[in-house]
């Protein structure tokens, strides 16, 4: 008889891991016990050596679906001790554990639960909060750890006798399913207008109201959606007008994949992502039969779609024939999504006609995740619900520091590195909005709580002196009495990408809207030689003037004027703008003249190498977009126009030396596009060719550097790499030249992973404590 102590680490709490261990032990006739010690599950077993080895292998082979095993360590105990155990037991969680606990993300309602929900006569028939150990909310309901029901928002719903039986039976799939409940004991939904509307079936009524053209606010798992019908223009326009969001694409939810096939193209990898239990929004191309309202995603060739991820959503679709509903986060622009019933009713007054609410508290707001494929490569546009707080593994980096990285400013997540695991937060958003800035601070506190991080050794922020996160970093540095490290934006982008591929060195094309450069100018079209803790900026797009600074981001024709300025006389530019682009300037001719004077007199100009601004200017130049009303609008519309065209027009590239670096002459590029436009070339082909030219230019800059430095891998990071055509062109050019090309696959190409990169640079730089 042998005895062993087995420690299992990973996502092993709140996922049905212990009952699974119990079942494996029972099957092998092994005695002993299992219990939670925080992030570690401790198993002590006795039996013959062979059975114990089988047992230990089965732990990995037969693990529950949403668990994740990082390590299994066996330690053999005293040989001659007599049998101690009688059967196999699941012991209570030990409360005096140490170390961090990895809490699983929220999981879409599983098939077995949905079968019950749809089965007439089942005690959970039509019950919207049905969940089990394999599915349901986790992160969004957790107040504190260890993950037990009384530390979640389910605490308010004591289990009824039936549910309690299941909860206490190790053979039941709801054994210690902390979010389990039923119509007798669990939360309930109700419908509101100004007051509560008594209804037999609020979900059914909600579907009817939607189909009649109403806008509903529906409180779900990690937040609230504004929901509207998609087959008719009117409800969509109504929602747009009420939100003042006239162009921004809305995400949709569709009942099943076959329905999605009816209006969108779905590649097999996209289908897999749609069906994954993380249930992200997947950006899909509209197909030739696309029949939803064009208002859903105006002027774009694609749209975001997700499948139902809670029983409540599934039920909604059982009461309608609608192929999809708009499901967009219910928030005021830039502010956090609403989660409290009273807030939803008060703040959405005038936006929603009805409210479908429930009485379970959302502890942690968690926006829907969004992914997009470029070729077969997935990148997160937003990594949030369904993924957070699953950590990134930093065990390759030798550090025992606790690092808190605050990200950039607009598309913020923060990251907390502790014991070699980097927890990237849910989507926080635009921290220039005060409410969001406060939310950031609360979310940090909460993340430190559920990871049991008592102290921070390094706080990391962006180089930008004005970011609110920079200011917060200094406050937190004082609070934790620790140093504040500033990491350059594109260095952080490159670091996040290096993590996806476990690379120490590569050439990174960092192409995005803006990141504060080491020289104080606005970077965004950079070739970075990344080598871990350090980086060199080795090439870039040509620095261009932004007349009026951030104003050029909103009005891209200003950028166009700035970019033409090195090649044309002021009179020529004014004349061109007056004749062809007058409607792109809110103050018309007066504004054009003012901008010309600004350029002449060097008044309130700032320099940028941003790729985003070049794409914006091209969109303006081709009369695709004259005002940006949401992030990335001009570049996205350029991409959609280009998608209709072909790469038939030759746009010559000019690379020159400037201050010891190669720079791509973007003035010459846009002027050549402009000339071809004036010659009457088709806009779609021009958009396509112009986009390809920018891509080739960036690729060539990178290849030159890679060959000189003897580096064999080139990567792409930054929001520009969400653009499929640009990503694919760069990949092609880079691979044709004989280099590897890497893209994000488990992180965001955009700013959502900047905090992750910042944490990584800090870990590499600051290394081991003591």
């Amino acid at each position, binding site marked *: 008889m042998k005895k062993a102590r087995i420690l299992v680490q990973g996502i092993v709490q709140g996922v049905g891991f212990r009952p699974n261990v119990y079942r494996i032990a029972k099957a092998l006739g092994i005695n002993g016990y299992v219990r939670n010690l925080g992030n570690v599950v401790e198993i002590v077993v006795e039996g013959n050596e062979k059975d114990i080895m089988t047992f230990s292998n089965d732990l990995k082979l037969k693990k529950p679906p949403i668990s994740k095993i990082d390590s299994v360590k066996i330690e053999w105990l005293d040989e001659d001790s007599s049998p101690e155990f009688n059967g196999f037991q699941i012991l209570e969680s030990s409360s005096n554990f140490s170390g961090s606990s990895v809490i699983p993300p929220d999981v879409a309602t599983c098939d077995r639960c949905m079968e019950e929900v749809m089965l007439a006569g089942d005690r959970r028939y039509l019950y919207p909060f049905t969940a089990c150990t394999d599915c349901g909310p986790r992160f969004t309901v957790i107040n504190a750890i260890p993950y037990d029901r009384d530390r979640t928002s389910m605490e308010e719903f004591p289990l009824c006798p039936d549910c309690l039986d299941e909860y206490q039976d190790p053979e039941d799939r709801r054994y210690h399913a902390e979010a389990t409940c039923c119509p007798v004991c669990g939360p309930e939904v109700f419908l509101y207008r100004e007051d509560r509307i008594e209804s037999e079936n609020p979900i059914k009524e909600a579907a009817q109201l939607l189909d009649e053209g109403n806008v509903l606010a529906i409180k779900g798992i990690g937040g609230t959606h504004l929901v509207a019908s998609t087959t008719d223009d009117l409800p969509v326009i109504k929602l747009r007008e009420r939100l003042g969001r006239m162009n921004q694409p809305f995400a949709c939810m569709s009942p099943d994949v076959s329905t999605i096939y009816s209006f969108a193209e779905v590649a097999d990898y996209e289908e897999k992502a749609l069906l994954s239990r993380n249930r992200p929004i997947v950006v899909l191309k509209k197909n030739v039969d696309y029949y939803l309202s064009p208002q859903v995603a105006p002027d774009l060739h694609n749209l975001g779609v997700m499948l139902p991820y809670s029983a409540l959503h599934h039920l909604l679709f059982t009461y309608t024939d609608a192929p999809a509903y708009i499901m967009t986060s219910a928030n005021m622009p830039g502010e956090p999504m609403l989660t409290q019933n009273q807030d939803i009713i008060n703040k959405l007054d005038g936006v929603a006609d009805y409210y479908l609410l429930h009485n379970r508290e959302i502890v942690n707001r968690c926006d829907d995740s969004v992914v997009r494929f470029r070729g077969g490569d997935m990148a997160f546009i937003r990594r949030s619900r369904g993924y957070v707080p699953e950590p990134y593994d930093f065990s390759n980096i030798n550090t025992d520091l606790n690092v808190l990285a605050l990200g950039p400013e607009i598309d913020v997540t923060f990251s907390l590195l502790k014991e070699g695991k980097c927890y990237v937060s849910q989507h926080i958003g635009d921290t220039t909005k005060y*409410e969001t800035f406060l939310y950031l601070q609360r979310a940090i506190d909460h993340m430190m709580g559920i990871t049991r991080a008592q102290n921070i050794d390094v706080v990391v922020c962006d180089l930008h*002196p*004005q970011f609110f996160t920079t200011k917060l970093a200094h406050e937190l540095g004082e609070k934790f009495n620790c140093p504040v490290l500033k990491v350059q934006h594109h260095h952080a982008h490159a670091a996040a990408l290096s993590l996806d591929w476990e690379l120490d060195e590569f050439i990174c094309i960092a192409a995005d809207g803006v990141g504060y450069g080491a020289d104080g100018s606005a970077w965004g079209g950079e070739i970075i030689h990344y080598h871990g803790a350090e980086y060199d900026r080795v090439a870039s797009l040509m620095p261009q003037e932004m007349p*009026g600074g*951030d104003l050029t981001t909103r009005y891209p024709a200003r950028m166009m004027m700035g970019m033409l300025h090195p090649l044309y006389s002021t009179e020529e530019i004014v004349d061109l703008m007056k004749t062809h682009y007058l409607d792109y300037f809110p103050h018309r001719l007066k504004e054009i003249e003012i901008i010309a004077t*600004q350029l002449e007199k060097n008044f*309130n100009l700032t320099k940028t190498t941003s790729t985003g601004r070049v794409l914006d200017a091209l969109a303006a130049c081709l009369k695709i977009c004259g005002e940006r009303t949401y*992030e990335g609008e001009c570049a996205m519309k350029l991409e959609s126009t280009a998608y209709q065209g072909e790469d038939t027009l030759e746009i010559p590239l000019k690379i020159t030396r400037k201050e010891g670096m190669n720079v791509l002459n973007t003035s010459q590029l846009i002027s050549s596009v402009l000339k071809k436009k004036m010659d009457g070339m088709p806009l779609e082909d021009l958009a396509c060719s112009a986009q390809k030219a920018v891509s080739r230019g960036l690729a060539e800059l990178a290849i030159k550097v890679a060959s000189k430095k003897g580096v064999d891998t080139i990567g792409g990071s930054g929001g520009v790499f969400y653009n499929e055509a640009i990503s694919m062109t760069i990949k092609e050019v880079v691979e044709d030249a004989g280099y590897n090309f890497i893209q994000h696959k488990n992180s965001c190409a955009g700013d959502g992973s900047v905090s992750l990169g910042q944490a990584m640079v800090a870990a590499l730089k600051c290394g081991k404590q003591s």
Partner: protein
Amino acid sequence: MKIGMSHGAGGEIMQGLISDIILDNIKNKTVNGGVGLADLDDGATIPLGENEIVISTDSHTIDPLFFPGGDIGRISMAGTVNDVSVMGARPLAIANAMVISEGFDVDELERIIKSMDEVCQETGVAIVTGDTKVMENDKLDKMIISTTGIGIAPKGAITRDSGLEVGDKIILTGSVGDHGISLMSYREGFGFETDLKSDVAPVWGMVEAALDIGGVHAMKDPTRGGIANALNELASKSGVGMFLDDEKIPVKREVHAASEMLGIDPYEVANEGKVVMGVAPEKADEILEAIRKNKYGGEAQIIGEVTTDKHVILETSLGGKRILEAPIADPVPRVC
């Protein structure tokens, strides 16, 4: 390190220079326990008997010397009178030092002096002493005027920047950005100055009206760095925050249009004839009414109130709430 233009721009960089290089190297910074150099208030005070003497000083360079709505003479008098006024003291006298470059036109000098006198008469202030120097014209561009103002207040009646109390109402005496935008426009040739002129004016009349009613806890004249700077300074020195209603802050249509075209925030632009003050809530309406009766105060508004929060928050009708920051010298793009 060399001095850059940003070291004089009134933002955080200038604050750094003042505290590291100036304050750290001066030992005697206060007299009789009055407000001293280190307080970085609008002026200093010397308590004497039943009264407090208030002193404030300013150097004036401006390009161009004559601009729509005023000239360097008017601005150098008004600027100093205003700094004394917002300490809560009645301005009494001015000392005036001028450094003039060789070749300067005497007729222009006369115009400038007359302009100074006009402000002094309006406020009941005398120019009691002065100094005049001339420099080679390759060493000085036109002229520099340094003015020192003396004022008086009953002991203990001084309004400090740090005097805000939670619940106070914030009064702004008129539209913002007029001076900065019109001057900028005139200098660079943008042409907005045809509809717009500098607001340069002495504010003592408005301040006096408010002080007569009582309940004024703190004041500032929002010059360099605009109201964004002044409000943040008041809040941080008082250890409080503010909640402001964006719609209540008067901005002239032309200023608004110009700022939209130039990419310049009117809240960060200099004013030369405005005051922001924190007043006891129960006195706010009465004070507002009194200020509105003054010839410079017709557009005065209550723009918000003092909170326990440590930030100055601006609520906008469409964009929600944002933190109004103190400007740094040169903004760097941040919208991605």
